[in-house]
């Protein structure tokens, strides 16, 4: 029973962070209708920003406030100068924007590799390996703090989307771009803001994960994969779905690692992905209608 509870706790804590990654992806997905395959790589860039600041003695939870604006800027620039121009280009393949994000992801990874080499770096803080106990269940201090910060960001994001003017514009653009234009929404600007926001959210996840994971250039790929599994799980463009999707993936990974084998951790996500497509196309969104 303890093993079960322990696995459950680990899965939920990890899931909270995955949710943050997934929300960024699903926002971009909803507004632009494209999957951002550079998502994990953007997170990797944020992790390196955290790492560099860590070398300068800044705590990861403070460098969060550097990484997020920096990635917001990077994301907006990518959208403004690399993705938006593609809308005007006449081409056979509609997936050009997705291919472009793949290229951007490769460039980001290699540029980072150029500066930092492929070595594994770690952001070791006083609480990286610290744990506390509730009953017999141990909680990783770093993951627990990260979990609550992730929850705070998720809630803030939710209210931003529901209550503010820009949030409403983003949702309007996601629902019907043409109608949004007719209502006076500057959709070009909204796409730029959205990509920036998505990048900033994944940057937050990156800073929060930095004390727990090793930091290396190729960490982006697996997280891009996780982000799109979460998005498919939760339902495309659904914020609430992304939270459920993130927690589900976190749980599945930790249960799989405990009860099947560590080797299969990467395959489990992919299997869920295919199962969801088979039996629940549309993801959790179809069940919750949110």
């Amino acid at each position, binding site marked *: 029973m303890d093993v079960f509870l322990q696995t459950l706790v680990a899965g939920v804590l990890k899931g909270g962070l995955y949710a943050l990654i997934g929300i960024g992806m699903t926002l971009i997905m909803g507004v632009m209708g494209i999957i951002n395959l550079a998502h994990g790589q953007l997170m990797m860039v944020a992790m390196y920003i955290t790492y560099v600041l860590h070398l300068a003695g800044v705590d990861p939870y403070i460098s969060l406030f550097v990484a997020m604006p920096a990635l917001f800027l990077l994301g907006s620039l990518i959208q403004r100068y690399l993705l938006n121009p593609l809308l005007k280009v*006449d*081409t056979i393949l509609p997936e050009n924007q997705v291919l*472009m994000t*793949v290229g951007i992801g490769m*460039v980001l990874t290699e540029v980072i590799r150029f500066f930092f080499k492929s070595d594994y770096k770690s952001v070791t803080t006083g609480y990286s390996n610290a744990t506390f106990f509730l009953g017999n269940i141990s909680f990783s201090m770093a993951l627990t703090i990260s979990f609550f910060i992730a929850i705070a960001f998720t809630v803030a994001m939710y209210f931003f989307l529901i209550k503010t003017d820009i949030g409403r514009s983003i949702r309007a653009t996601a629902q019907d771009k043409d109608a949004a234009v007719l209502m006076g929404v500057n959709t070009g600007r909204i796409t730029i803001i959205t990509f920036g926001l998505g990048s900033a959210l994944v940057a937050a996840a990156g800073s929060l994960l930095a004390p727990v994971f090793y930091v290396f250039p190729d960490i982006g790929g697996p997280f891009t994969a996780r982000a799109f599994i979460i998005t498919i799980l939760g339902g495309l463009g659904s914020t609430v779905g992304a939270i459920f999707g993130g927690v589900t993936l976190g749980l599945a990974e930790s249960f799989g690692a405990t009860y099947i084998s560590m*080797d299969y951790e990467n*395959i489990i996500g992919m299997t869920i992905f295919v199962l969801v*497509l088979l039996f629940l196309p549309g993801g959790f969104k179809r069940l919750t209608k949110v």
Partner: protein
Amino acid sequence: MKKNLVPLVLLAVLAAFPLVVADNYYRHLMILFLMWVVIGSAWNLIAGYTGQVSFGDAAFFGSGAYAAGLLSHHLQISAWWGLALGGFVAVAVGLPFGWICFRMRGAYFALATLALNEVMRHSAAIAEGFTGGMVGILIMPTFVSKVPYYYVALGLAVASMASIRWIVHAKPGYYFVSIREDQDAAESLGINTHFYKMLSLAIAAFWTGVAGSLYMNYMGFIDPDVVFSLHDISIMAILVGIVGGVGTVYGPMVGAFVMVTVQELFRSGFFGLFAFLGRATGSPTVEAVAKTITGAHVLGFGILVVVVILVLPNGIVGDWPKIRNAFFRNKTAA
């Protein structure tokens, strides 16, 4: 006849190539080029003509390579039989996948192929008893000379291009294009889109698998990270397709030539140019730059993707009028 003149002349040049050029280095590059023609043409059929962009060609390539490798590894049967078998194994991987995943469209299908790629790679690495895991499979190459491999590769390249050219000009080809242009309209005209997407995938998977078996026979060594590589196989296949020209018969050939050249330029540090400069000037900076460039071929690929999509979205063949106008405006005007 006139229509076929250029391809036939090109074929003659390619057939004569190993007789004229004795240097094994260039023969090796040409074999790689021909192998990429096969893979690129296959990618182009499923993505360029049918509009179902695949990010997971390595899944089929690796299946073909492992089919050949495992034959010789477990049953001591010559890996050349894999050339016949590899394609069918890749189809056997592709069809169930397509049956499940063709209910998704556009970018989601692309993601599913990416997932297939990863699943195959991890599976091959985990199933150590069967595939040898990360140790890989080593077989003895049959020939010392590169010439037999060259002609096998040439034969495959010609066969794949001919078959794909034939099919895109036959009825299924028009169905493929109609699916790409508007799947709902195609469906409403009574085209069984699911069946034709599966057909397109089967042909593409077959040729990619055959190319994989050729790779196993030629290189003599495979491991999961080599043949199921996302960057070196799947992304390279996409690049071959889009650089050459999506939805054109000869585009993948141009794309394969450009990409193999680019890859080799980076790998060899611009054919030793930087190493030479480093020695000539004796400056450590240049040598450092040379070392970096040799390791930066993925960066080069990434930048190439970005630039090609922005500037030449339809590839060299597809945007040929645009290129011609940009460079030879005077001649066309005259």
